[in-house]
């Protein structure tokens, strides 16, 4: 029998198999258990590709649905340098289409990268020409680009968004959470050659676009304000200017114009100074327009009546070792005339009659020293010191609009309060937010902030301010056929070099409302550093008249002298 060697071979074979299986088992345990996490991640990196899709940014329209900002898909072009045979030839073909120098394109295409952007968010025509070229290693993808079809119109309010669709300034920034489209991340599978295998149904997974905003602004009123402001700033060689038009009964902003303007379609070369919304980011000493607030407080507190007599000190009054001047020598005048003639001494005396605490309370009541809470970014609260920090002259100074910093928005908001019978409304620019199907998500209703003065005081102030336009410093704001209530303001600016009031730099302003008996518009015009004659009554009041007249015509508001016409109906 030869069982011995046969058994030996069998054992040897068994041993070899066992060794082999042990090695395989060991390797399996190492790969499947010990290195499982690491290797799974490595495999995922090789097989999967994560891409993010973003829905289009929402549209912004004016109160009548006129589009002010919207997204359009435009071509962006990229290159795959590793798959290019002759980068210089490709660059020569691309250069005239992309308007980029050949050398610059070639440098990008010679990089040791598998993907490089050559130009993003081009004009649709450029995309068509690129497709006609059909160059190997060059691809075109569609990306959303923000367009502001009206150019500079309302730019300071709209703001702008960045290359990747994020809101950077203005409403684009404030409402970014509503405007930006849904971001969806999708994992794509890649085959052994690295080609993308699109998962089934990807085409249906289009991300939801952002929400659409409807503004309270009217593009025609905005245009009228911007056009007249530009003309005024150019004509007076001023540094800048602001106009705000508000609906007194609701607080809705109808127009917010800032000069100089900018085009949000081309912001790359501009500085923040250019796109800052000065209507709510910059403070100025209001000067005489503040007298309206002081007068309203005095009437409400019954410290004064329109007929109260005030002595004008013949144009000079010494307070805390400083002299207050009036621009004309005034004797005994009525309280109405203090406002009409814009007497500094009369205003100072009114403030002193009120006292620090009461004046401060009304200044706060009218919204000074605090944000109006308008739905725009960058608003400042202005400068209003507490009475404990006031100097010996502060009471008089604040009463005539010095030692206090206000924004144009705060000032027009205060005047709109008087136009609205003493009730302050919260200013706002966005009235509706809707989703992509037009479903109403948010409706902004007028919001009462507080009652500041009684309807009687508001009415009396209206009559007194009408006097400013009919017989006082604001004559150039008069709009034929309408009753206008308002106040002029001319404030010296503080010279940053000397720290004292400048004798050459002024802010001229006019703030008021029209028609006085039933106000449709509250408006402020601020002209910063006009050259030559700088009186608010000379530089800002005429702008108020021109804008007011056109806007009232546009809104179809009847003049007092309107001829009543009735037409008979006729059937055809």
């Amino acid at each position, binding site marked *: 029998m030869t069982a011995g060697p046969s058994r030996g071979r069998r054992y040897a074979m068994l041993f070899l198999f066992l060794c082999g299986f042990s090695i395989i088992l060991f390797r399996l345990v190492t790969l499947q258990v010990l290195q499982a996490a690491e290797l799974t991640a490595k495999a995922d990196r090789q097989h999967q590709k994560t891409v993010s899709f973003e829905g289009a940014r929402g549209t912004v329209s004016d109160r009548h649905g006129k*589009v002010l900002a919207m997204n359009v898909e435009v071509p962006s072009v990229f290159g795959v340098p590793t798959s290019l045979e002759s980068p210089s030839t490709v660059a020569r073909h691309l250069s005239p289409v992309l308007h980029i120098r050949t050398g610059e394109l070639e440098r990008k295409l010679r990089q040791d990268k598998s993907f490089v952007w050559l130009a993003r968010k081009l004009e649709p025509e450029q995309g068509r020409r690129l497709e006609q070229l059909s160059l190997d290693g060059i691809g075109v993808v569609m990306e959303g680009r923000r367009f502001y079809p009206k150019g500079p119109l309302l730019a300071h309010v709209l703001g702008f968004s960045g290359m990747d669709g994020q809101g950077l300034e203005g409403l684009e920034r404030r409402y970014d959470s509503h405007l930006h489209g849904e971001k969806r991340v999708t994992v794509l599978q890649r085959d052994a050659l690295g080609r993308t295998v699109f998962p089934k149904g990807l085409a249906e997974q289009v991300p939801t676009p952002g929400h659409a905003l409807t503004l309270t602004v009217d593009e025609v009123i905005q245009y009228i304000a911007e*056009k007249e402001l530009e003309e005024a700033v150019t004509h007076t060689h001023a540094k800048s200017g602001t106009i705000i038009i508000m609906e007194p009964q609701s607080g809705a902003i109808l127009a917010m114009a800032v000069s100089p303007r900018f085009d949000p379609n081309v912001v790359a070369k501009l500085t923040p100074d250019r796109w800052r919304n000065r209507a709510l980011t910059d403070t100025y000493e209001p000067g005489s327009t503040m007298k309206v607030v002081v007068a309203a407080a005095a009437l409400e507190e019954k410290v004064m009546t329109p007929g109260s007599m005030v002595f004008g000190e013949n144009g000079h009054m010494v307070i805390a070792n400083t002299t207050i001047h009036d621009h004309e020598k005034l004797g005994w005048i009525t309280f109405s005339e203090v406002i009409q003639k814009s007497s500094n001494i009369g205003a100072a005396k009114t403030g002193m009659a009120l006292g620090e605490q009461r004046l401060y309370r009304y200044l706060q009541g009218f919204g000074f020293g605090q944000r109006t809470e308008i739905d725009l970014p960058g608003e400042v609260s202005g400068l209003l010191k507490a009475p404990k920090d006031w100097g010996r002259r502060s009471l008089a100074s604040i009463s005539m609009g010095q030692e206090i910093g206000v924004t144009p928005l705060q000032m027009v908001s205060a005047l709109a309060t008087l136009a609205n019978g003493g009730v302050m409304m919260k200013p706002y620019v966005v009235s509706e937010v809707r989703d992509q199907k037009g479903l109403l998500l948010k409706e902004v209703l007028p919001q009462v902030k507080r009652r500041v003065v009684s309807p009687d005081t508001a009415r009396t102030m209206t009559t007194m301010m009408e006097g400013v336009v009919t017989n006082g410093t604001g004559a150039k704001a008069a709009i034929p056929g309408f009753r206008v209530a308002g106040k002029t303001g001319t404030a010296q600016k503080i010279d940053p070099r000397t720290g004292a009031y400048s004798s050459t730099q002024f802010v001229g302003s006019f703030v008021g409302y029209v028609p006085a008996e039933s106000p449709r518009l509250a408006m402020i015009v601020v002209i910063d550093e006009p050259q030559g004659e700088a009186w608010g009554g000379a530089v800002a009041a005429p702008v108020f008249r021109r804008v007011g007249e056109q806007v009232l*015509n546009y809104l179809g508001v*009847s003049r007092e002298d*309107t001829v*009543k016409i*009735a037409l008979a109906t*006729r059937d055809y």
Partner: protein
Amino acid sequence: MKMLTIVAGVMLVFVFVWERVDVVRLGYQIERLKSQKVLLERERDQLQVKFSSLTAPERIAKVATEKLGLVPPQQGQVLMVHQSGDVPGLSLQPVGQVRLARHIAAGGVSE
């Protein structure tokens, strides 16, 4: 009977195959229409931007003054017409206004 069963079976197979082919064909058609929809939506958006740019008040004012020689209305040239019956017995209904406007647009008011 056997023959009939075979014919019916073959017919069923044909129907099944035809149905599968048609599903694929419709699938392609849906994809093509979807791409067309995307292109049309893109074109619509581009036209919307163009429309909004062309109707910008600034541009209209420029065309009106520089090309057509129009000027803003002067004082007294704007007359508000009241709709309410200010004169007893006479009234202007909105419908009447629309009709009137349409007739004027069509080349003058006709009886």
